């Protein structure tokens, strides 16, 4: 998961950038309601800031190179998720849609409690699955506008060449929105939540319930934070978990 996540980040950034180099050549999309244009993609100052204009050929060359990496990376991610069984943590369940609303209320500080969860909460399940579906959507709409004659059936599924280009553009806006919310959430969740995305394991401190003195000595290191009071074992995501647990000098465990 971590590998594809971090590989995807620069690839998607390059795809969006090169996509803008292409879009500039025919930048016709606006948000217009009742004849009033609210948003025009994109204003001149924005193009100038990012040195977008007059780079169509270059943009296409980058786009059609990195599309391979984007596709392969997504493919590996989906395969990994299926074979590792991780999809069970990710795919929304029946209750997720109802619960996601409660999670949202909680995150907005409207509700105090949050529904019980495993690795990901209901809102995360929906968001992280949606982003994969969106990735697939970008691939399909992309192919539909890239080879509309050879893949005429894809273009047909996407509602024609015009709509496919709009969907392709819209999905990109979706990524940007996802990115903003994602980064804000990651910052709010803190370092101990972020670190595992790089290192692959999570450190959960055990509040020592009975044998206070010894336990405190062992576990009171500066980098650790109290992450989850309900859990009272050292739980790791990777294989280190079991070893670590075996090696752990944990008086409370030993006592049991």
């Amino acid at each position, binding site marked *: 998961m971590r590998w594809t996540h971090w590989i995807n980040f620069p690839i998607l950034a390059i795809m969006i950038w090169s996509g803008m180099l292409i879009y500039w050549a025919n930048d016709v999309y606006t948000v217009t309601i009742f004849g009033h244009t609210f948003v025009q993609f994109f204003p001149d100052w924005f193009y100038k800031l990012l040195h977008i204009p007059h780079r169509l050929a270059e943009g296409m060359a980058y786009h059609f190179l990195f599309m391979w990496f984007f596709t392969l990376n997504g493919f590996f991610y989906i395969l990994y998720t299926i074979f590792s069984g991780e999809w069970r943590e990710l795919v929304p369940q029946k209750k997720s849609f109802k619960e996601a609303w409660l999670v949202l209320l909680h995150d907005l500080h409207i509700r105090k409690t949050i529904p019980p969860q495993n690795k990901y909460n209901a809102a995360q399940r929906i968001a992280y699955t949606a982003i994969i579906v969106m990735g697939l959507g970008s691939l399909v709409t992309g192919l539909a506008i890239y080879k*509309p004659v050879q893949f005429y059936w894809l273009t047909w599924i996407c509602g024609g060449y015009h709509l496919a280009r709009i969907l392709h553009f819209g999905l990109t806006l979706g990524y940007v929105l996802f990115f903003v919310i994602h980064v804000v959430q990651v910052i709010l969740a803190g370092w101990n939540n972020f670190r595992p995305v790089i290192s692959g394991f999570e450190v959960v401190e055990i509040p020592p319930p009975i044998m206070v003195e010894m336990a405190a000595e*062992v576990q009171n290191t500066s980098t650790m934070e109290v992450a989850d009071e309900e859990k009272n074992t050292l739980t790791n995501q990777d294989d280190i978990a079991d070893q670590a647990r075996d090696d752990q000098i944990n008086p409370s465990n030993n006592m049991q």
Partner: protein
Amino acid sequence: MPIKKKEKKLPTVEQRIKRRNFLSFTTFFLLGGAGLGGWKWLYHSSAETPGITAGAAKPLRRALNRTELFFRNLFSNNHLVKTYPKSMAARKVRVNAHIGIEAEGFKPESWQLAVVKSAGDILNLTIEEIKSLPKTEIVYDFKCVEGWDQIQHWAGVSFVDFVSHYNLQQQIKMQYVGMETPNGEYYIGLDMESALHPQTILAYEMNEQPLAIEHGAPLRLIIPVKYGIKNLKRIGKITFSNNRPRDYWAERGYDYYSGL
């Protein structure tokens, strides 16, 4: 319960966590740095040596050519561009460029098409001769590399009919077709299979009227399996070759194939 001796040898949990963190973060930053380095290399890589193609960075051109080879496997003459009823065709057909057909005293009346069958064997044809061949009409969505598209109505002789009528069977065994304007200022190259696609047309009519000058009178190429940049206006010369013929936009950083 672990044996005491073993416990002494093994590092503590904190050491293991620290070590593991250190390794992961080192790997992360090393790979990140390598990625950034790779990107910088690609972004600043030198331009290709100008030849049939030019104007793109070397690795990007290599990627374009490889991608072409992959997608050519998926090309089929059975994949037809979607067609529309005539009523949907645009009345005002977009004119995007005049390269090769700028005003320069061109006389459509004295125009002749030169088909170079081989060195020294040139077939010269008048527009009347071409108009006497079976006519093919198409109403389809013309697509520009810039991203716009427009439903347009064209008519002329399909390239397949043209080839069989003038017995160019030997010539179409070659891999490429080249076309250029009479003044040689705009020129394109096509892979043979795209040229022989059933919807490739040497067009002399638009919206059931003879072509206007700005649309490429008297004869232009309409090739729906390519972007607009390959749809040459005012064809002066047609050549055949086993090597890629020169191509105006491929010399300016665009993909040579530009297939749809």
